[in-house]
C-alpha cells in the first residue's frame, strides 16, 4: 500500500540543512458553494529544518490548525505547494498529530486509543502494547491505561492524545494547543517532558499555542501569525540555551524581552482586527503580565 512512506526506503535529502517542511505560496480557503469562501490562509511561505522546534503563535482564527492539517496532508492547498521531505505530504505514522480537541475514540480504552495509532507501524500486537504502555507511562497515565475517555478529566484526555501521537515515534510532531486544558503544574511538567522526548529524538516539532511564555520556553523559533486572511507576519529566533529545564529560563533578560515584544504585537493585532470582540479598545492599558 504505502510504498515510500514507510521510513527506511524514503531517501533523505542529500543536504542536511535543506528544509524538511517547505511551504511555498500556500493558500487555503473554506466554504464556497452557495456561501462566501473564507480565506483561512493566504500566501504562506515557510521552511522548517530538521531538528527544530517551531512554535506557531497567533490570535484565534488565523489558520494555525489549518496550517498543521496542510502539513499533515489531511487537506490540500488551493494554491501553492507543500513538501515534506521533498514529497507532497501523506498522513501516516511518520507524522504525529495532537489535535486541539483530543479526538479520542470513546469506545476504546486509553491503551486502545494509543494502540490504534500503532497498527500501521507495528505489526506484532504484543510489541504494540508494550510501546503503548511505555508512552502512557511517560505522560503519567499508567493508572488509567484501562479507563475509557469518558472516565478521564480534560487534562488526562489531552495527555492520552499526546501519548498517542508520541507513541509512533514520528519524525515530525504536529501539536495543536496540546497543553491548553492542563492545570499550571501539569502543564509545566508536560512541557519539560515534551522537551526531553524531543531532544532525545531530535524530531521536528510544530507546536501551536496561545501562550507567549510557552512558545518562548519551548521553541527555537516562533512564527507569528495574523488573522483575516491568515498569514505569517514574522519569524522570530528565540536564541536561548538548551536544555532549558536545567536553569531558570524565565529569569533571562532575553525571555523578558521576547515576551514583551510578542505580547505587544498580539495585543495590537487583536485590537486592530475588526472581527475581534476587543476591536478598538485602545483605552485598555498594555499589560505584559500573565499569559
Amino acid at each position, binding site marked *: 500500500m504505502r510504498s515510500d512512506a514507510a521510513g527506511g526506503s524514503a531517501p533523505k535529502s542529500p543536504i542536511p540543512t535543506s528544509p524538511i517542511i517547505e511551504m511555498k505560496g500556500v493558500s487555503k480557503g473554506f466554504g464556497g458553494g452557495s456561501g462566501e469562501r473564507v480565506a483561512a490562509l493566504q500566501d504562506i511561505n515557510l521552511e522548517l529544518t530538521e531538528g527544530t522546534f517551531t512554535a506557531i503563535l497567533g490570535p484565534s482564527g488565523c489558520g494555525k490548525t489549518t496550517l498543521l*492539517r496542510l502539513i499533515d496532508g*489531511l487537506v490540500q492547498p488551493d494554491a501553492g505547494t507543500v513538501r515534506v521531505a521533498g514529497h507532497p505530504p501523506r498522513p501516516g505514522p511518520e507524522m504525529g498529530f495532537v489535535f486541539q480537541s483530543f479526538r479520542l475514540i470513546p469506545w476504546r480504552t486509553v491503551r486502545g486509543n494509543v494502540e490504534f495509532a500503532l*497498527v*500501521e507501524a507495528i505489526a506484532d500486537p504484543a510489541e504494540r502494547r508494550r510501546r503503548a504502555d511505555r508512552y502512557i507511562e511517560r505522560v503519567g497515565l499508567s493508572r488509567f491505561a484501562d479507563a475509557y475517555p469518558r472516565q478521564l478529566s480534560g487534562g488526562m484526555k489531552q495527555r492520552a492524545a499526546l501519548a498517542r501521537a508520541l507513541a509512533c515515534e514520528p519524525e515530525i510532531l504536529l501539536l495543536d494547543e496540546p497543553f491548553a486544558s492542563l492545570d499550571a503544574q501539569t502543564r509545566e511538567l508536560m512541557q519539560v517532558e515534551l522537551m526531553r522526548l524531543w531532544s532525545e529524538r531530535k524530531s521536528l516539532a510544530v507546536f501551536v499555542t496561545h501562550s507567549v511564555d510557552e512558545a518562548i520556553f519551548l521553541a527555537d523559533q516562533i512564527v507569528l501569525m495574523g488573522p483575516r486572511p491568515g498569514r505569517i507576519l514574522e519569524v522570530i529566533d528565540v536564541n536561548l540555551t538548551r536544555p532549558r529545564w536545567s536553569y531558570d529560563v524565565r529569569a533571562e533578560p532575553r525571555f523578558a524581552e521576547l515576551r514583551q515584544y510578542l505580547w505587544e504585537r498580539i495585543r495590537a493585532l487583536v485590537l486592530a482586527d475588526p472581527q475581534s470582540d476587543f476591536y478598538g479598545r485602545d483605552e485598555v492599558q498594555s499589560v505584559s503580565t500573565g499569559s
Partner: protein
Amino acid sequence: MKIILYRIGVLVALVLIWWFFSTIVERQLIPSPLATFHAAERLIAEGRLSTALLDTLTIYIGGYGAAILIGIPLGLLMGTARTLGKTLDIFIYALSATPRVAFIPLIIVFLGLGASAKTFIVFLGAVMPILINAYAGALNSDEDLVEMARSVGASKSRIFREIVLPGALPFAITGLRIGATIGLINTVVAELYTAVRGLGGLLAIYGNTFRMAEYFVIVFTLAFIGVLVTTALRLLEMRLERWRGNGA
C-alpha cells in the same frame, strides 16, 4: 433490582384491573384471568398454540432476518458512499411513508397466499426502519475521529470497521428494535390478509366466533414475543456498548 419489583407490582395491578372489568362487562366479552389461563392450558395441550407459534415465528424470523441482512449493509453503504446515499434516500423515504398494506394485493398477485408472500410482507415492513437508521448512523460518523484515523495512516477499510461502524451501532440497534416491532405487526397483518394461518389466523378465528378467552391467549403470546425480542436486543446493545458504563 428494584425496578423488577415495581414491574411485578404494575403487572399485578393490571391483572386486577383486567379481572375487575371482566366481572362488570356483559356477555363475557372480556374473559376472566382464570378463564384465559384455562384456555391457554387447553390450547397448549391440543398443540394448537405451538403449531401456530411455529408458523408465525417461521414467517417472522424469515422476514425480519432478510430485512437485517439487506437493510444494515445497504444503509451503511448509502451512508458511506455519500453520492449513492443522497441519490437513493428520497426514494427510500417515499417508500417508507407509503402504508405497506397498500402493497399487499400486489404481493398476493405475484407471490400468492403462501409463506413467501407473508415473509415478504414482514420484510417490507421491517427493512425500512432498519435501513434508514443504519444510513443515519453511518452519515452521523464523527468527522473529527475519521480525520484522526486518517492522520495515523489508517486504511479506508480500517476507518470503516473501527470508526464508522462502531459509531453507527446505536443507530443500527434502534433500527433493529423498531424493525422488530413493525415486523411482528406485519406478520399478523400478513396472516390475516393472506392464507389464514399462524397466530394471526387463530386471532381471526377466535375473534369472529367470540371465543374471547382463547383470543386473549393469542394476544398475550404476541405481546410476549415482542417483549422477548426487544429485551434480547437491549441485552445485545448493553454488551456492545459497555464502554458507555451504566449511564446509557
